[in-house]
């Protein structure tokens, strides 16, 4: 998937990643976050490009090369009828896809925590093959954010041999020892994602959480067709924002029992974004009154492209038109040698919302092969609640 606006000119960008010795087997091209795009497309592409140096033949073809970038891959379209649990599983004919979970947790020790669990799928070629010849590559990111620390781990695996993958029923998504799966003892009935166990581990942390959905799946955008730019780039996108969580975190300081709420995003596409979009700011918010809000801003040379979905407490989604949500960056913090706006003002006049967000830990930096900021936030103002913020391209 190519959303690389300036083509290969970015390869030489001097960032701290570039200063690490070139040690790769496959002359790694480290795409840099300074030009990363929307969560949909470029995060995964960039990560994979960075990690494995995969060639992106269309990288130099820019915006006009849209048609060729997705050559051979299926494209999102309007009017698609989702079928579950099949659509919980992978869509190998699309270039990219993810299972993306964020959780706002409270520990028995009284402290707030955030947890991230992400499985990305990237198809180097459309379709799947058994065994090592599979062109599907899997990437996992996991993190625990505490008020004072950020614990991060990353995994990478080939498809085809069972090291990583997703099966829709009984639902299981895994990479190495990390898994998001429906427990064996789970009651029948309901959606396959209603009841999940989640686990991941890194050198200095591990976690094990149980998730129960208290509401329905939510289709984002127009019935699950989510537009990402004025030019019409789009993805298939649905969420399960209604999880309650119980579980345990293992940290260097010991184990902590936690409870809280979580949000799962499912998204897949083959399309790149517009050529001049340089990064994004993405919010998922749980209001204390039970409503949810998903909103993002794709930054470009102009005013940017914002989009949002208002989700009623009963799960009824209301897609908001581009521009309905206004995002204003506030205080900046120095994170990993760059200035990142860690506090924000969100205004959604149609719902009477005017809130300010504060991060749990301003240093919630995902120091993965392609780095970005992702961490739990709290907000107050006209309404209050908690959520997650992701910022790329700084």
């Amino acid at each position, binding site marked *: 998937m190519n959303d690389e606006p300036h083509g290969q000119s970015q390869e030489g960008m001097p960032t701290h990643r570039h200063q690490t010795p070139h040690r790769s087997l496959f002359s790694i091209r480290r795409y840099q976050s300074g030009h990363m795009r929307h969560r949909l497309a470029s995060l995964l592409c960039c990560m994979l490009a960075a990690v494995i140096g995969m060639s992106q033949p269309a990288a130099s073809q820019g915006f006009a090369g849209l048609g060729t970038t997705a050559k051979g891959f299926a494209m999102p379209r309007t009017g698609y009828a989702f079928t579950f649990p099949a659509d919980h599983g992978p869509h190998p004919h699309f270039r990219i896809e993810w299972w993306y979970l964020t959780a706002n947790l409270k520990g028995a020790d009284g402290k707030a925590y955030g947890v991230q669990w992400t499985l990305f799928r990237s198809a180097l070629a459309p379709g799947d093959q058994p065994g090592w010849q599979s062109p599907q590559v899997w990437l996992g990111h996991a993190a625990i954010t505490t008020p004072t620390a950020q614990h991060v781990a990353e995994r990478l*695996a080939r498809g085809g041999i069972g*090291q990583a993958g997703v099966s829709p029923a009984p639902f299981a998504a895994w990479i190495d020892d990390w898994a998001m799966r429906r427990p064996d003892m789970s009651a029948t009935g309901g959606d396959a994602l209603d009841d999940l166990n989640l686990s991941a*581990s890194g050198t200095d942390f591990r976690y094990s959480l149980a998730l129960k959905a208290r509401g329905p799946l939510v289709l984002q955008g127009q019935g699950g067709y989510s537009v990402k730019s004025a030019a019409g780039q789009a993805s298939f996108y649905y969420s399960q924002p209604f999880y309650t969580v119980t579980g345990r975190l293992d940290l260097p300081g010991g184990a902590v029992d936690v409870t809280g709420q979580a949000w799962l995003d499912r998204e897949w596409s083959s399309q790149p974004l517009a050529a001049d979009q340089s990064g994004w700011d993405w919010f998922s918010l749980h209001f204390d009154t039970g409503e949810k809000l998903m909103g993002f801003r794709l930054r470009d040379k102009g005013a940017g492209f914002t989009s949002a979905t208002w989700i009623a407490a009963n799960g009824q989604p209301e897609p908001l038109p581009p521009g309905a949500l206004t995002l204003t960056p506030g205080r900046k913090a120095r994170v990993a040698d760059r200035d990142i706006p860690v506090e924000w003002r969100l205004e959604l006049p149609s719902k009477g919302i005017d809130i300010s967000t504060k991060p749990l830990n301003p240093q919630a930096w995902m120091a993965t092969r392609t780095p970005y900021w992702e961490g739990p936030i709290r907000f107050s103002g006209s309404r209050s609640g908690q959520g997650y913020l992701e910022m790329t391209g700084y």
Partner: protein
Amino acid sequence: MTLTVALSALLSHWRRRPAQLALLILGLSLATALWSGVQAINAEARASYDRAAALLGQDRLAQLARRDGGAIAQTDFVALSRAGWLVSPVLEGTLRLEGSRLRLLGIEPLSLPAQAETLDLGRGGGDLLPFITPPGLLYAAPETVKALAAVPGLPPLRASPNLLPGTALTDIGTAQRLLGRPGEISRLLVLPEQPMGRANLENVAPDLALKAPEAGGDLSRLTDSFHLNLTAFGFLAFAVGLFIVYSAIGLAFEQRRVTFRTLRALGLSARALTAALLLELIVFALAAGLIGVALGYLVGAALLPGVSATLEGLYGASVPGTLSLRPQWWVSGLAIALIGTLAAAMQSLWRVWHLPLLAPGSPRAWARASEHALIGQAAAGLGLLILSIGLGLWGSGLIAGFTVLGALLFGAALLLPVLLALVLAGLQRLVRRPVAEWFLADSRQQLPGLSLALMALLLALSANIGVGTMVSSFRLTFTGWLDQRLASELYVTARNPAEAERLTTFLQGKVDAILPIWHIEGSLEGAPGAVYGAADHATYRDHWPLLAALPDSWDRVATGRAAMINEQLARRARLKPGGSLTLPGGWQVEIAGIYSDYGNPEGQAIVNSGALVAHYPTVERLRFGLRLAPGGVPALMAEIADQLKLPADNMVDQATIKRRSLDVFEQTFTVTAALNVLTLGVAGLAMVASLTTLSAMRLPQLAPVWAMGLTRRRLVRLELARTLMLAALTFLAALPVGLALAYVLLAIINVEAFGWRLPMHIFPADWLRLGLLALLAALLSALIPLRRLARLAPADLLKVFAHER
């Protein structure tokens, strides 16, 4: 008086005697050349092993492998990953191509740890998709890519200068497909950072064991003996070379005694004089060292292709045929030249330091060694010999073996002057005529001065006899063994299983027997090895060279419950017929017999071919030995080529394979032979140096004899006779030492280094040749000093008396 003036006065000596300077420089540079040449070869080879070992980070990463040496199932890899083990699979195997072999390394690029990514495959390699999806890509050294370009059926090739020749890197999926080993993994690289709460290995994959990182790897271990061998030779050559330096420096110092005294009398302090001489020596040492290193490069570069071929043939180690200038050998070459020079000059410098200002300044012959010193030397020599015998009897290990060698050689060298003195004293008692008596007494008087050169000659001669005997014994045994072992008249290798099937069908009825030669590679008693399958056929019963066996050994093998093992494996693991052995995969067999297996460093076992296939269903079944009347071989080869389109490279007749084996054998000892000759040459130079030194100092001894009526012609003849007599006596002394050396090489060093013991054969004709060569060397070395003596003006002889004060 300034140091510069003193220096120029001292250096004027060399201007007047350029030949002496040349000898000093030549001796020192030759010694340095041999040493640094050998070191250069070793450094090159070690760098290759390190590269091979570092290729996938074995030198820095722990690994998981099956305890029984078999292949790891891919499902085990997935199970380990899903239990939290961060590991990366590697499949390693040999791909037999038309006429060559390719070591194939299958890796998994996504999980490959940073430590294993030491090689940058270069630009244009950024495509993961073509690498992991069929047909895949093969990365290899540029020369390997060139060599493989015409081979059909291989994936597209990419050149990477960082890979060793003969090795190709590819995706594990491609490797499994090319090697015909689906779902198999050789080993798992363990990433250094592992997640919290990882499961225990015993619970996930109990068959696997964790192996710590190993520097240098198997190759380094296997080839250690070979390099120790070369180093020992290099050191011997250097030691012999130092004798030259010692003589040349001694001569120059003796000749400059007058100058020294004059300089001291003019007010130069002993400290300044010594400093000036030291400076002079350092300059010479560095100059000679540089020349030596340059010569060493030439020696190394000339020998390296032979060494590479040997290492490839013997150990399968890939070493490039070109030498690179590595600081570790040229710096060490310079250093050893310097240290050697200073060590050789120590005695002379000491004398200058203590030079009594008013003592006679005339050159004098080296003092007659006291009885006391000789007794001390004899005791030291005997002590070394006893140490050598003791270690030979009770020691073990390669280092002990080489210590036996060293103690034997240097003990013998130390005893030589004692022995010669005794022989001369004995002869002296037998003769009554005055000239003969003077001749012998004078010879004894000369011994201390000549003994160093004679010791050098003894070392060179005994090394020559020892190594010559070892090589010839080996050659004789090896050719006999080849005749037995290569019983099949024709060896054919199919390119794929379907072709193998067509081939066997085609051959039915056309040949007397089709003997499968199939094997698997795996670990035997903890080291890399191979298990071969053999059909139950008379060929093996009649021809296979067994060293020890149970009764009905081949019948036992035919049942599938017993195996024959090679001598290397038996010696290394101390196995005996009747004992038991675990083959890769946990298959327990009885040891039915032990066979000799020269030219192969690895352990090997032979089982029944049916049992082999039953235990290792994935074994490659492509190679066969065919029994038929020798006359029918060319016709059959033509017929196979014609009907089955099998390339000529896939058929080898007995004569060709024998020739190839002998080539490998000859290559193995090319280096040894070359070093041998060079060492002998250096010893010859040492003789020249010593005799020149002595002749200049001997005037005071010769003048009285001349004055008593012996003509110069007669004196020259007597001098010549003395040189030849001493050389001959040294050669006689070298004979038993050389034979003892051969015995140590065959019975101790070879067993430790290669794992096989060879019978010793004696070749007196070679000794005769060597003896004549030694005499010739002595004759040549005496020529220059004697010519001078013959032309000596009577006035010079008279001056001896005139100068006596």
